[in-house]
């Protein structure tokens, strides 16, 4: 992008082109944003991605169906469990497998724990981008508790590989549910703590209100999903609209915003923390007994056909499109609809006319994970 010189009556002014990233503290990984500035005001941006491309989709076409679960961990690496669930359910749909109720409950539970962990990371980094650094450490303190729970469940702390086609790799450890409920209690009070620091903070409100406003129509046109879409007032949530796992048996609300600005997106996610805790409590208390794996053939070989299945990941609608040729033990075509990638489209629209400081706030507000954007 070159900077055009604007010939004025007295002085010529140059627009300043600034390269933000891929090495920049607040582009959340390796996002590169080329900003064209008029003073501090952003005239236009160019969002450049691809620095973390690992070819996960192509790799998957050369792995067998079980091995792919491990690859899905590496997409949205701050919410690996939801990626696993999405993939496994897609294959199950392709094979018309029945998943036992207990496994579906545990999946729901893990998905919601993961949502809280992911939102903790979002809250911390978002607040940090706007300069509130204490919230960052508080949020990570609570995320740590969730990572401990996951570690106890599957032994890993970041990339869990915690699902299997047809169910779960192992049952939850005994006493684990008590620890989950314990965590819910802690999290309840900590949420109030975050809100005390931010929600009614004048500076926070000034920094986020009316920043990056997206109307409902714009948000739909841009193909947004998840909190950025709901922040604009569109009550779309895959968990409610096309229930998967055990969400049809759970009681929860879908928070939506009104103004569609950064503050609303913040409020939506904060409320999602609470709704997630509600779901976790229901799922833990109502955890049914029974097997954890359905009737799965020894050799996983889905019949020829194609399917698309979406779940609500912490970032938005995470969809898998898989084509099976029915002959080989690996997918014929594997394609992901990553929510971060689609949500990132909105950045250019949102930052136009705002200041440099808003750019980092908006990147944080979209909550993108570059592992998922580039795959």
């Amino acid at each position, binding site marked *: 992008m070159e900077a055009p010189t604007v010939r004025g009556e007295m002085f010529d002014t140059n627009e*300043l*082109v*600034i*390269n933000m990233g891929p090495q*920049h*503290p*607040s582009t959340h990984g390796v996002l590169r944003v080329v900003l064209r*500035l008029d003073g*501090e005001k952003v005239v236009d941006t160019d969002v450049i991605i691809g620095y973390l491309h690992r070819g996960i989709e192509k790799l998957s076409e050369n792995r067998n169906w079980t091995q792919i679960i491990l690859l899905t961990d590496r997409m949205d690496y701050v919410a690996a469990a939801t990626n696993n669930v999405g993939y496994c359910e897609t294959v199950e749909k392709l094979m018309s497998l029945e998943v036992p109720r207990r496994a579906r409950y545990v999946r729901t539970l893990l998905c919601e724990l993961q949502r809280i962990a992911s939102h903790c990371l979002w809250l911390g980094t978002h*607040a*940090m*981008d*706007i*300069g*509130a*650094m*204490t919230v960052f*450490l*508080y949020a990570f*303190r609570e995320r740590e508790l969730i990572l401990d729970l996951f570690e106890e469940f599957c032994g890993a702390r970041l990339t869990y590989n915690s699902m299997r086609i047809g169910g779960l790799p192992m049952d939850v450890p005994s006493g684990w549910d008590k620890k989950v409920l314990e965590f819910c209690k802690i999290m309840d009070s900590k949420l109030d703590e975050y809100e005390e*620091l*931010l929600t009614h*903070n004048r*500076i*926070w409100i*000034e*920094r986020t209100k009316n920043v990056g406003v997206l109307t409902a129509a714009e948000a739909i046109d841009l193909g947004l999903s998840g909190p950025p879409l709901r922040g604009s007032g569109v009550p779309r949530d895959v968990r409610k609209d096309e229930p998967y796992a055990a969400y049809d048996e759970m009681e929860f609300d879908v928070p939506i915003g009104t103004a569609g600005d950064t503050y609303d997106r913040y409020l939506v996610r904060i409320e999602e923390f609470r709704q997630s805790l509600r779901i976790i409590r229901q799922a833990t208390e109502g955890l049914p007994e029974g097997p954890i794996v359905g009737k799965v053939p020894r050799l996983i070989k889905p019949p020829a056909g194609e399917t698309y299945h979406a779940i609500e990941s912490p970032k938005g609608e995470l969809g898998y499109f898989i084509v099976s040729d029915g002959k080989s033990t690996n997918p014929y075509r594997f394609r992901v609809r990553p929510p971060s990638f689609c949500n990132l489209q909105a950045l250019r629209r949102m930052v136009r006319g705002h*200041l*440099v*400081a*808003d*750019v*980092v706030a908006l990147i944080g507000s979209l909550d993108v994970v570059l592992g998922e954007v580039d795959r």
Partner: protein
Amino acid sequence: MIDGFVIPLLKIVIVLNATLVGVTYMVLLERKVIAWAQSRLGPMRVGPHGILQPIADAVKLMLKEDITPARADKWVFTVAPIISMVPALIVYAVIPFGPEVSLFGRQVTLYITDINVGLLYIVSVASVGVYGIILAGYASNSKFPLLASLRASAQLISYEVAVTLTLVSVVLMSGTLSMVGIVRAQESAHLWFAFAQPLAFGIFVIGSLAETNRAPFDLPEAEQELTGGFHTEYSGMRFALFFLAEYANMIVVSSVATTLFFGGWLRPFPNWAALSFLDFIPSWTWFLIKSFVFLYFFVWVRATLPRYRYDQLMRLGWKLLIPLAIANLVLTGIIRVALL
């Protein structure tokens, strides 16, 4: 000979060294306090509870490679940190740490000098400090520092107006520009000026946060936006000079706030005989305690608040603080004239 030359020189040496040590320990204090606020421990490895951390930091910074970018304006790049540091240090010449005391049988004043335009001297020297930041941003020949230095200079100039106006209100109360005179005026008025001028004090605190580039006004070095701001291209000791200057300035504004609004070296209720048992505490201790409270406040604010945006900062300065400061000044003037 001794009174005219040796003692002032000795005082200068002591104050300069105390300041520099104080500045390095200020960094440790900040790291510790913020760590505690964030349920962490902070530096723990160098010495017990990290007490020697500043020394380790200083050694590290001195040993680091000093890089000058190839396309930088080398001359200006070199002087910028010096310009930043010098005003922050020479301001201490007029800060009164205590009154005249007798030490080893000699009458010694606990300040380097008391010029009759002391307050003006502080303001004018501080205004020169802006150059360090502007020139650093310009000389780096890099876009982020340039943007940051423009932010910095606009911010410093704007808030300097508000802060100076509040200082004028205090001068109206005290009738003198001398720092020692201002403390004496508070003594004879039986009143700390913070209580006589609460509005001026509030504006001064907000303005001084902005003038020292501290959160929530730390836009010139907003790490998350400008990757460090005006000192992005600096390394080693030159970077350390900017760092030291920032903390030295914090200590300066704390000292000025103490002197102007909290009675300097005076103990609480200096004219209450009932409290005279406190007199065994040396006067400079009171000064240090009061300044420390301010420094702690600075750190506390940083741990709590998010950062303002550039336009909001400007709006706050020009549309709220400056009009309020002017109104306060006019009001003070009217009351003074009415009382006389």
